[in-house]
C-alpha cells in the first residue's frame, strides 16, 4: 500500500507550494494540498483535510499529514479523532517542520517506505540533532 501525503497550511498558496516542491523528488507519490479555509481565507479547514484524507483512503493509500502551525495541527487532530481505530492506523500526523518534513517524507514514500518510515522521515529529526 503506497503512502500519500496531505499538506495542511494556513495559506492555500503555501500548501500548494510545498506540494510542488515535494513532488520534484517524488514523481509517483500522491500529494494533496489542504490549505486555507473553505472560503479562501487564511486558516485551516476541517472539511478540506477530511475530504483529502477520505479521497486518498478510497484510492487505497495510507496517509501521512503534515502541518505548518499549531492550530493546523489541532484541526488535523480533530479529523483524526473522528476515525475509527482501524482507520487511525492508516492515517497519521507527522509532527515535523513542514517544508523539510514534506520533502523527506515524500522521498521516503517514493522509494517504497511504509507509513512508519514516512512519518519518521517527516519528523526530520536529523535537522535537530
Amino acid at each position: 500500500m503506497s503512502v500519500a501525503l496531505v499538506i495542511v497550511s494556513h495559506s492555500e498558496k503555501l500548501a500548494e507550494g510545498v506540494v510542488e516542491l515535494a513532488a520534484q523528488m517524488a514523481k509517483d507519490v500522491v500529494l494533496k494540498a489542504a490549505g486555507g479555509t473553505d472560503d479562501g481565507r487564511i486558516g485551516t479547514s476541517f472539511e478540506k483535510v477530511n475530504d483529502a484524507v477520505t479521497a486518498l483512503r478510497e484510492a487505497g493509500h495510507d496517509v501521512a499529514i503534515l502541518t505548518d502551525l499549531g492550530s493546523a495541527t489541532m484541526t488535523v487532530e480533530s479529523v483524526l479523532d473522528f476515525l475509527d481505530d482501524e482507520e487511525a492506523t492508516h492515517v497519521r500526523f507527522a509532527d515535523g517542520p513542514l517544508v523539510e518534513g514534506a520533502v523527506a517524507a515524500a522521498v521516503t514514500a517514493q522509494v517504497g517506505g511504509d507509513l512508519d518510515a514516512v512519518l519518521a522521515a517527516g519528523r526530520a529529526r536529523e535537522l535537530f540533532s
Partner: protein
Amino acid sequence: MADTLSVAWADAWIRGAQAVLAEHRMELIDLDRAIGDGDHGENMDRGFKAVVAKLDEGGIDDVQGVLKLVASTLMSKVGGAAGPLYGTAFLRAAKAAEGDLDANGVVAVIEGALDGIVSRGKATTGEKTMVDAWTPALEAAKAVAASGGTAAEALRAAADAAAAGAEATIPLQATKGRASYLGERSIGHKDPGATSTAYILEEAAKAAEAA
C-alpha cells in the same frame, strides 16, 4: 426559575452567545490583533451565525443535541484555532450532558468542555489561554453544586469566575499558541480566547436565570 435546564435553555444560550459575539466582534478582533493573528472575532462571529442558522432548521429535542450541533458546526466552519478548540469543548460537553441539567449536570458539562480544550490544546493554567477562564469557571460551579445550589446559580458563579479569569490574563506572559512568539510583549493584553469564553458563559448564565 426552573429547577433543571432543558433544550429551551440550550437554544436560548447559543442564540444569546451568537448575539453577544456579533456585538463584540471588533473587540475580539482587536484583542487578537494585539497578540495573535487577528481572526478570533471574525471566526467566532461566523461560527456562531452558522450554528444559529442550523438551529433555525429545528428538529433538536435535547441539550445534548444542541451542544453536538455547536461542536460539529464550529469544527467545520471556524478556520482558526478556535474551531478545533471550541469544537472539541462542545463535543465533550455534549457527551457529558444527559437529559436536562441540574447543578451537577452543569458541572459535568463545564468539566467536559475544559477537558476537551486541555486535551486538544495541551495548555494548562497560567499560559494566557482560554483555559484560564474555563478552569475557575469549573471550580466555581463545583462549589455551588457541592453546597446544594441550583443549575442557574452554578452557571452564574461559573460566568463570573470566567470573566474574572479573563481579566486576570492581562498581566500574564503567553507561553502557549502563537501569542507565545511575542514573549514579554504579550504582557498587558487580555487573552481573546479567555474573553470569548467569558462572553459565552455569561450568556449561559443569563439564559438559565430567564428559564
